[in-house]
């Protein structure tokens, strides 16, 4: 199982004069979970959005499962996205739909399953993330943590081979954060799901990641297993992992 599933080569992206990604290189093997860590606003979400084709890079390429995402457009790109599930930082639930419709929308749109069947699968996925008896509620009736879990249930509803997590544990209490961490682990061990998670929650990163990659200054500056991260003397990584204000990473941005 050493096959490369996601390969990002020299990815560059800027917004106006602000270069966010300055040449990102990253490889993710099939069935592996890589956690991209880095400060808020360093371009982690932008990186995820490129992988699923929501953003187009200025240069560089991304190959997922042998298909060059950066070269796809229109119908092909839409079709290609069926291989992905994505959890958004803000959950991004559809507020005009009920919880079960949110979770089952992909199934309702892409399969011939009838409503009862989709509802059953949605309930099953919701149970996986620790939610019961919420399927008829509206997203506006849920707490932030519940929204996040519904978002996660939606991301895995179609059993995609690749799942992208944007801050999976932000806004959750420590216990629920651990439930989500375990769930992400379980998806990886039982279903061999390939995942990329971006987070600044080091606790979560250490628990879910097979490997961690630190994004700093628009590039991946460090890659390694959680043990290697703990052991490294790299001052940038140390400062981030230990959460210190003093160090080589500037506090002021602009």
């Amino acid at each position, binding site marked *: 199982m050493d096959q490369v599933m996601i390969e990002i080569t020299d990815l560059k992206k800027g917004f106006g004069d602000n270069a966010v990604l300055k040449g990102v290189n990253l490889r993710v093997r099939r069935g592996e979970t890589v956690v991209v860590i880095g400060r808020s606003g360093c371009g982690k979400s932008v990186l995820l*959005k490129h992988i699923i*084709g*929501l953003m187009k890079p200025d240069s560089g390429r991304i190959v997922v499962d042998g298909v060059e995402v950066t070269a796809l457009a229109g119908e092909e790109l*839409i079709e290609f996205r069926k291989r992905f599930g*994505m959890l958004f930082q803000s959950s*991004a639930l559809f507020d005009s739909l009920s919880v079960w419709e949110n979770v089952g929308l*992909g199934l309702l749109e892409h399969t011939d399953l009838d409503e009862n069947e989709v509802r059953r699968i949605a309930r099953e996925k919701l149970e996986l993330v620790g939610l019961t008896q919420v399927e008829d509620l509206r997203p506006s009736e849920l707490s932030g943590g519940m929204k996040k879990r519904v978002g996660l249930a*939606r991301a895995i509803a179609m059993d995609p081979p690749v799942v992208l997590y944007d801050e999976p544990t932000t806004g959750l209490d420590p216990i629920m954060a651990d439930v989500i961490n375990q769930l992400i682990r379980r998806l990886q061990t039982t279903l061999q799901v390939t995942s990329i998670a971006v987070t600044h929650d080091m606790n979560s990163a250490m628990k879910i990641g097979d490997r961690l990659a630190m994004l700093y200054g628009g590039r991946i500056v460090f890659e390694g297993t959680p043990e290697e991260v703990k052991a490294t003397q790299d001052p940038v990584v140390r400062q981030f992992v230990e959460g210190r204000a003093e160090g080589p990473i500037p506090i002021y941005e602009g």
Partner: protein
Amino acid sequence: MNLAQYVGRSVGFSVAEVGAVFILLCSAARRIPKALKQKHLVVEQMLRIGVGSIPLVLVTSVFTGGVAAVQAAYQFQNYVPLRYLGSVIGKSVVIELGPVLTALVVGGRVGASIAAELGTMKVTEQIDALETLAIDPIRYLVTPRLIAGIIMLPVITIFSDFIAIMGGYVVALIGLGITSHVYFSSLKLFLDTLDVFSGLIKAIFFGIIIAMMGSHHGLRTEGGAEGVGLATTRAVVSSCLLVLITDYVLASLLFRGVFSR
């Protein structure tokens, strides 16, 4: 920036904007066959655009018909016998007042709501989320609104025409002392099916304009609540302007070209 630069930039921006709307319209139109397979999405939009607009259009139309009667009677003084009132009201309502006022009122209401809804979805990443579920946002969001606009605007216009003519009738009967028989026979005397038809053709175009302006500005929303407000304003202003401009163009084409004998 000097005046020439300013004008140049504005013109360039407008041309780009028109191009973007046109591309969106073509993309949405191409997806009509697919969108028709998901009737529930279309029906939901038809109810929102159509049924939801009935109270507003009802009030607007009653008073439009009423004021048409009062104004026509004033202008007829000493020149035209009042028995022709019905045909003047009928013609002006079905050709012009019905379709245009309906489009302006519905454009304000529906254009704003489409822009606000899609705009909120855009800034809260719901559009991105749709795409990650391999759902085409144009097919899922824009095309059902386009179809609903094309179908419902003519339907509401017929309703508005009827109500406005009845509004005129009430004023004629009570305020001007014209009998039912005189009003309705005059209405029938000059009212042509082509007149009604031309009004409905206009309504179809207005339906396209309202759906597209709401969708275009909604999908282009950026930057939170302020952006949603801006998109809503732009959708309403641009759809009202385009309705009036298109009305003139269609009137010229239909009445100086196709229907003139």
